[in-house]
């Protein structure tokens, strides 16, 4: 049950060959060197995937998607990550694309989906608000009908990739009458509209790819709403169901863990050896490897069966905490070389600290950035509440 079928193994080899031969080498090189990718890098990467028909990973075949089984999707993700390829920016392809495909109008499908696949448009996600983090039901962002338009007002926060995005999809309150979760609609807006202001947020790792976005009487046609009014909560849950394992990133975890051993072989240890023979490091490394092996088995079990809310919540906690543990081990391994805070947007970034292993500053920034994993997408605390409700329910 945990093993791949012969067909799946063949697919795996096909994907592996693709990344080795038909994928932009400069993207892989930059990732390996710890350099931050540009928008153009992502466009190059997406176009290579799209040329192979492999960009619409969670989309049905009839709108240009791959139509993969969950396991095929998993294999693809893993190989992408093993290859150090660019992660697919999820906002358009993973998050909104499948919702448009399932609930969008014909016009939305014809206009928006091809633009995404052809990398003509990038999207941002407008879910969180300053006063509504894990508590999405208390959204304040409003969409008020005015003839054939909605007038949007409010603030969205933690919007990632807003500096590259052309469009944003927003959860917006279209009614205050119903229960808190009801009365929320899914409405899209071009980010260039008057009344929209994007404020980049600088994060503790030095990046500024998140933003706070203010909407001040922004007017969009009601045809920009996806699906029915007041049904966004339902759509968001459908998305959650199909995408709840997309954060698993087992491949990148395995890759990063393996890379730590390579790095360790280059770093001096106490006495005369290198860190790959340091027992404390190796034990800590093996402990995470063991954990990751169990998490991978859990993911495969889940992919081959039905996934309950509790299981999804448990896997979200396990995957994100494991990712954090890997970055924690990485900074432990880095030692003092994690101390410099360097700007990694240029090719020769590592020259700024010539006496330091470049691995260190990358590890440090990853460690800081990955702290967000247990906060966004439903914090660990919220996931635990979900699991508890399921456990208490079973006990009854």
């Amino acid at each position: 049950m945990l093993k791949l079928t012969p067909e799946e193994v063949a697919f795996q080899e096909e994907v592996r060959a693709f990344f080795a031969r038909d994928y932009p080498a400069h993207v892989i090189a930059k990732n390996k060197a710890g350099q931050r990718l540009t928008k153009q890098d992502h466009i190059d990467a997406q176009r290579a995937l799209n040329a192979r028909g492999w960009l619409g990973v969670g989309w049905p075949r009839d709108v240009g998607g791959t139509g993969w089984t969950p396991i095929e999707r998993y294999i693809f993700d893993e190989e992408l990550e093993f290859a150090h390829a660019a992660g697919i920016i999820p906002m358009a392809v993973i998050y909104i694309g499948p919702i448009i495909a399932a609930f969008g109008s014909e016009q939305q499908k014809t206009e928006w989906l091809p633009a995404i696949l052809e990398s003509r448009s990038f999207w941002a996600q407008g879910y969180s608000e300053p006063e509504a983090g894990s508590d999405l039901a208390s959204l304040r962002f409003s969409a008020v009908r005015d003839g054939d338009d909605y007038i949007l007002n409010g603030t969205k926060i933690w919007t990632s990739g807003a500096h590259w995005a052309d469009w944003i999809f927003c959860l917006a309150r279209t009614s205050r009458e119903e229960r808190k979760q009801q009365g929320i609609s899914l409405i899209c807006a071009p980010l260039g509209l008057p009344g929209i202001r994007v404020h980049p947020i600088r994060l503790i790792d030095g990046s500024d790819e998140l933003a706070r976005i203010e909407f001040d009487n922004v007017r969009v046609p009601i045809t920009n709403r996806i699906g029915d009014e007041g049904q966004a909560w339902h759509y968001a849950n459908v998305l959650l169901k199909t995408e709840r394992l997309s954060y698993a990133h087992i491949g990148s975890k395995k890759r990063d863990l393996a890379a730590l051993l390579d790095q360790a072989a280059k770093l001096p240890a106490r006495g005369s050896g290198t860190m790959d023979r340091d027992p404390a490091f190796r034990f800590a490394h093996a402990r995470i490897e063991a954990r990751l092996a169990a998490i991978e088995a859990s993911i495969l079990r889940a992919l081959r069966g039905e996934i309950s809310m509790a299981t999804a919540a448990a896997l979200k906690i396990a995957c994100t905490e494991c990712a954090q543990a890997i970055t924690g081990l990485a900074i432990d391994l880095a030692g003092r070389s994690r101390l410099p805070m360097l700007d990694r947007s240029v090719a020769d970034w590592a020259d700024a600290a010539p006496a330091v292993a470049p691995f260190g500053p990358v590890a440090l920034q990853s460690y800081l950035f990955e702290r967000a994993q247990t906060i966004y997408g439903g914090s660990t605390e919220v996931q635990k509440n979900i699991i508890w409700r399921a456990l208490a329910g079973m006990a009854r």
Partner: protein
Amino acid sequence: MTAPLSDAEQVMLRDAVRTYLAKDDAPRWFDFIDRLGIGRALLDAQQGAIIAEEIGRARVHLPLAEVATAAWLLDRCNAPVPPATAIATLAWAEPGLRYDFAGIETRARRNGDGWRLEGTKAVVDWATEADALLVAARTGGDGLSLFRIDSARTDGLRLSPYRTIDGHPAADLIFEDHALPDDALIGPECGALDLLEEARDRALALLAAEAVGLLDSLLEQTIAYTGQRRQFGQPIAGFQALQHRMVDMYLECELARSSAWLAVEALDERPAARARAVSSAMVNIARACRLVGQEAIQLHGGMGMTDELPIGHYVKRAMAIEVSWADSDWHLARIAGL
């Protein structure tokens, strides 16, 4: 090897074992195997794991891992396998070694037509109940060999019986010039090391599955207890701090379950992959046993400390599994190749 069970057959096997153990909380091995008719299942790790999980859930005293491991060794050595209803157990541990078979000092010397065995074996599970003992000993070329001893042969064997923490019967064995016939040697002379390594991994997969049953039950008992125990005017399960800790227990239980699968499915892999998977599984199982066991007692409060409730007995069986063949550090070292 039998063909893998279908999903429906797996459920049937599980239900049959569960039903049997629900009716008899002190089953005898003979009856258990005989009445359920599951003797053949012992040589199949997948079926064994299903049975082991139920044994754990019910926390009954049955030598499943011991008998299955001995049967597998005998089968592999083309030695006659006793009926599954008989109890056989492997004696490997010694006071002079921690967990590595390489440290075995018990020695078998050729003596005329037979062998003479000399050495000490520590904490041999079910030795006092066994119809047959398998003993790992060093032979001529300094390699390891396996010997089979019928329980009738007591000359030159000093056996000190006691119960282990999980209430299982066990014994220390001291062989003093213990005479064995020629055919007591099973399998290749000096060629038992790889067999023992594989046997250990197979035993561990079964114990991992048993731990899954134990841990699930510990969580269930804890949720049930905290739901009825009232303090400060409400059931203590109403306190969010306790809820989140029970969720942490659940997370360990789920990873333990995946770990057991991982171990069982890896048994047919090459030795390096098998070792890696089984040791990874056992690191997680050991962690889960420790965390879930400690939390179960803590959340039961004083009642968790008493021998009256099942909880402590489950915890102690989990503690035995944690260290039965090796501990977490040994497994970590094996994963790290240190």
